[in-house]
Structures are given as C-alpha cells and as structure tokens.
C-alpha cells in the first residue's frame, strides 16, 4: 500500500519556485550584462538599463527567498532541515547514498527509499546553496561599487580588495554556468526519479505530497 505523506511544507515549495523564477531571470539578464548581444538602434532606448534593473530586482527577491529557505532549515520538518542536506552523516544515509550512486552509474539495481530528498540529490543541493550564497555575496560586493561608502560597499566591499573585483566578476559569471549545468541535471534527475520511483517526485514540489510505500517505512 502507498501512503500519502505531506513532505514539502509550503515555505519549501514557495522558496523553491521563487528561486527557480529568480534564477532564470538572473541568468538571462546576467548573461546579457556580461555579453550584450542586442544593440540598441538609438540612444532613447534603455536596454542595458532595464537588464540591470531586472537583475538587481530579482537579486533582491532571490536573496530574500534564499535567506528564508535557510531560516526554514532550522524550523521546518525533518525533510527541510539542514541535516537533510548531509545524508552521509548517518549510517542509513551512507548506505542509501552508495545505493543511489550505484543506481545512477548502472552498477546497481536497487533504488533506496527516500521520503525527503534522494541522498545524492541532497548532497548536490548543499552545493547549490553554497553557490547561491556565493552569487549573492559576490553580486552585492560588485553591486556596492556604484556607491563607495554605502551599505553594500560597507559590508562586502572588502571582498573587492581581498579577491580582486575582476576575479569576483569572473567567478560570478562562471558560477552562472555551473548553475545552468545543475539546472539540466536537476530536471533530468527529477524526471528520472519520477519515472523510476513512481512516488510523485515531480508533483511533490508543486503539491507537497509524495507517495511512500508503507513497506519502506
């Protein structure tokens, strides 16, 4: 028998979709900022102006969403807890992790049961959150340059000296491509698990519910 479980609480889902929306917008506008591929026919236009405006607006939205999700890691249920991102901290987690990895590499057939994140994905999500925080920090550090002595320059401007502002830009730009790579991987794995586990992996991130086989519990 399948049991229907409420796994992803609403803050997790809202943050997830806000992150998706803002990340897509940030990547599109960020790519344009780095490489303006459209040229305005006349000076009355404001193409780069709007791109930057959108980039910074979504940057704030993204920051709020990421910070909210991080706070929820400490108040939400066990599946949204920060501990869920480190499956290899527990014995069962380690076993499931290896099982999952073997499944992905076609060296094993058994899928571990996961009520929350699948253990390999969870590890990837930890990396993703690190990249999110990196984008926010490096983004606001270079953002602060327009107003030396202002708020962002005050709290993050030191990074421009420590790392060098050109390297920060290059890293900010490069991390976008890592996130694009994750995006492809993530949607593919979501689809794969949805097909193979038949437990509502995909619909779960919309509705919050997943089907758990009672034998697995």
């Amino acid at each position, binding site marked *: 028998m399948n049991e229907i479980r409420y796994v992803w609480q609403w803050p997790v889902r809202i943050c997830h979709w806000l992150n998706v929306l803002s990340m897509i917008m940030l990547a599109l506008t960020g790519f344009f900022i780095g*490489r303006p591929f459209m*040229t305005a026919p006349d000076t009355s236009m404001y193409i780069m102006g709007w791109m930057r405006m959108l980039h910074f607006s979504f940057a704030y939205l993204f920051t709020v969403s990421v910070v909210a999700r991080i706070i929820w890691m400490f108040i939400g249920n066990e599946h949204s807890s920060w501990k869920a991102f480190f499956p290899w901290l527990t014995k069962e987690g380690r076993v499931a992790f290896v099982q999952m990895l073997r499944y992905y590499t076609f060296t094993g057939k*058994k899928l571990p049961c996961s009520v929350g994140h699948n253990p390999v994905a969870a590890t990837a999500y930890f990396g993703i959150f690190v990249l999110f925080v990196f984008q926010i920090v490096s983004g606001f550090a270079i953002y602060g340059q327009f107003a030396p002595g202002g708020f962002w320059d005050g709290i993050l401007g030191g990074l421009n000296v420590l790392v060098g502002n*050109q390297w920060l830009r290059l890293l900010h730009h490069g991390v976008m491509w890592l996130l694009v790579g994750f995006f*492809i*991987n993530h949607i593919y794995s979501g689809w794969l698990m949805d097909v193979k586990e038949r437990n509502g992996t995909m619909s779960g991130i919309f509705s919050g519910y997943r089907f758990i*086989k009672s034998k697995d519990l």
Partner: protein
Amino acid sequence: MKTDLDIVSPPIPEEILQRVEAKGINRRDFIKFCTATTAALALPVSFIPTVAQAVEDKRPPVIWVEYQSCSGDSEAFLRANQPTAGELILDLLSIEYAEVLMAAAGHQAEEAKHQAMEKYKGQYILIVEGSIPTGAGGGYCTIGGHSAVDDCKKLVQNAAATICVGSCSSFGGIPAAAPNPTSAVSVGSLVPGAAIVNLPGCPVNADNLTATIVHFLTFGKLPAVDRLGRPKFAYGKRIHDNCERRGHFDAGQYAEAFGDEAQRQGHCLYKLGCKGPETFHNCPTIRYNEGTSWPVMAGHGCIGCSEPGFWDTMSPFYRRLPKVPGFGIEDTADKIGIGLAAATAVAFGIHGVASCFRKGDSMAEDKTVKED
C-alpha cells in the same frame, strides 16, 4: 533672490598675491592654480584663500626618489601646467633631490639626498616612484651602493609623509606583474603602518599629485583615503559612473570594433574591454594634459591602471573579463560555460536513453498493478 551663481569666492588677500608676484609668479596663474586645486580637492570655494596662504608661505622640502620605474610619473608631473612645472617645482616646493630634475650626479647627488634627509628629518615630503624589488637580497636595484629596500625604508621612516606616485610604488605595478621576477613590492607593503598615501595611475595624474601636496600643506595631514590607501577626492568614484559614454551604455549602444561607426559616434566601449566599470579614478572629470582628454574620450577603453595588479587582472585589455586560469587565451568564460552545459545535457541525454531501456531495477518490493 540668491542663486548659486551669486556665490563668489572670497578674494585671496592682496599681500599674498604680492609676495607671490615678488617670486616671479604671475598672479593670474597663481589664482587659477589655487582655484583649480581647491576644486580638485572637492573643497568649497571659501577655502581658496586658505589654500593660497598655505601654498604661499610653506615651502616644504621634497625628496623624490625612483626605484623600479619608467620615470613616467616624473614626466607627467613636469608637463603639468598649473602653474607651469618650473614655477611649481622651483618656487612653491623645495625639491631637495629628484633624479630627473637635479644637476648633481653620482656621489654628489647621494650626498645631497643624505643631507636633506638628516636636515629635514620628520619634515620632508617623500615622493616615491617605482616599485621596490625585494628579490636577490634587494640586489636588483641599488643606488649608490645601497639597495632600494634599505634606501626606501630609511627615507619613509624619516619623512613627514610619503606620497606614492603611479601604480608601481602604490601597488607594485608592472614590475610586480606575474611572474614578478624581482619580487617587487609596493612602498606600503615594504613599510607597513607608515603615513603613506597611494596615487596609482599609469602615470599618476599630475593634478591629483598637486592637490594631495596642497592638501597636506593646507591641513597638515594627508587626505582621507579608501581601503586601498587612495585619496577619496580622486579615487572615490568609478570611471563608469562619471563617463560621458554612459548614456550609450545604458541605452545599449556599443562599439564592436575600433574604427566602426558606433565608435566614431561615441558609443560605449564596454564590448571592446573597457574597464571603467571596475576602476576608481577621476579621469572623466579632471582628464589628462591640461584637461584636454582622457582615454575613453579619445575612443579607447579604460585599462584599469589605477587598480591593484592591473596588469594581471585587467588584461586581456580588449576583453571584459580576465582569462580563465588554466585555459587558453581564446577561451572565454562563456565558451567554457557553454561547453560545460552542452556536455551535461549530452551526458544526461545518454543516461536517460539508457535508463529507459534498463530492466529489472526499481524498488525490490515494488508491485505495480497493470490495468487492462
């Protein structure tokens, strides 16, 4: 009604002007100089007489030394026009030692430097041009038998204040660029904690140097500086935020190649690698060579010469971002990124096809009911 136009600067007292004239300086030039310098320091016009007073009656001893340098900063300064270099240097400052200017040479010159240092201990302004090589026990640069390391340390420690002119003395500059064969360092890292102000630029803008000296004479201390030890009056704003081509940046109009129509129309040089967005300097407002022009005005992007490590981090000069370490010179971050994304997509595509055909996997206890 009182408008901004009514604000007139208080006059410079007549006796100051007379004393200046007695020294053979044209009073008009002197007034122009004091006004321009007050403006460069972002001080209100009411400070003009104070500045005039300070400039007129203090004749500070100056020692100007060069280590690993190209003398570009000396040259820039000698071509300053306000007042003409000769006047400023010979009348307003008392240059005790400057390799490019002095008649003395050899032991005589070294003797002069030593005497000036002893005589004006704690009073002279030290101006340093060029980086200091610390490699080979300081052997890469010696003057009169003393290494630049020892010479510089001694001079800085005995100075009232030290002004580093140009990117080399401020940040190491070109001699310190990778692989930095002589282990060149800036004055600031050679003598940490000393009263030093950095005026980077390649070369330094003579007007910024003059203004810094005048600030020191007027207020008895070095100007307020940013994190990198650069005076805020000159390095407090980004090139990009004061650039005359900024309208075209925001609009989305870019020159794509040197000499194309857009470049001639004065469009933004961003895509030609302009480093204005990452560089702090007042080039767009005070410009070079008597305010005639500056690189972006002349149609060439900023190369970020006043930022630390510019030779390594701002190059390739005609690309926006640095070269990705470990990759070829032609690989931009985007090319590598697209490659990465494509490789991911292909790998997962193959994985997906293979997964569709795999049998006998899934949950061991799985039982699905087939509907007829």
